[in-house]
């Protein structure tokens, strides 16, 4: 069974860098190269930024879960903000251009696999996978 690590993070901008640094240390210890570590750092930050801008109620917490497998790192960023309909317009946000669309585009470009599951009334989970080559 894979090792798991979970972080419960306040939905405030100042903690995104803390998550980024923690995941960076984790990826380093798993043997990812410098480029892959940078990819993971940006992808995780983008996912957390999305949650902080759109996916928390007040300053509610969200979870970052890491699954350490032999050949891959699986990172899930999970919020409980009720989910959203991707087809409908979301509130524009000064910190994220194109209403977060650029962030998701970047995540998909940098990670090997990305899955976004949103459940109306519950929340949203972005699962990102990076393989150790």
């Amino acid at each position: 069974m894979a090792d798991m690590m979970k972080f419960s993070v306040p939905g405030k901008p100042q903690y995104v860098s803390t998550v980024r640094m923690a995941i960076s240390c984790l990826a380093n210890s798993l043997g990812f190269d410098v480029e892959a570590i940078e990819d993971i750092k940006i992808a995780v930050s983008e996912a957390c930024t999305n949650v902080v801008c759109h996916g928390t109620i007040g300053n509610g917490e969200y979870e970052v879960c890491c699954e350490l497998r032999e050949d891959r790192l699986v990172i899930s960023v999970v919020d409980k903000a009720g989910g959203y309909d991707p087809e409908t317009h979301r509130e524009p946000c000064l910190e994220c251009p194109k209403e977060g669309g650029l962030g998701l585009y970047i995540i998909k470009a940098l990670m090997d696999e990305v899955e976004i599951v949103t459940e109306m009334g519950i929340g949203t989970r972005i699962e990102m996978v990076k393989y150790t080559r």
Partner: protein
Amino acid sequence: MMLQIQRSFDREKGVWNITPKGDVDISTASMLRSALDEAYRENKADIILHFDDLNYMDSTGLGVIIGAYGRMKENGNNITLKNPRDNIRKLLRITNLDRLLCPELCE
């Protein structure tokens, strides 16, 4: 401090030199926006962003720069990034913003 920004106006060349050091993310992007806006308000001129000491930037920083680029273009001014590190080069490349913001990478 996670982000420090120095700015100076080169009167001879008529350009702003702005040097951010550290990380630009959701918690510091507003500092970069203020620095760009204040500089441009003070002197409507081209801006060169020196990225030599910028360790990290994501879409929040790109958003700030794209916003400033759009406002400056209306007045015929430009914003250019110099010497971005590999992680930021990659970000510029995958978003196709290198041609717009950092032509030196495409030469």
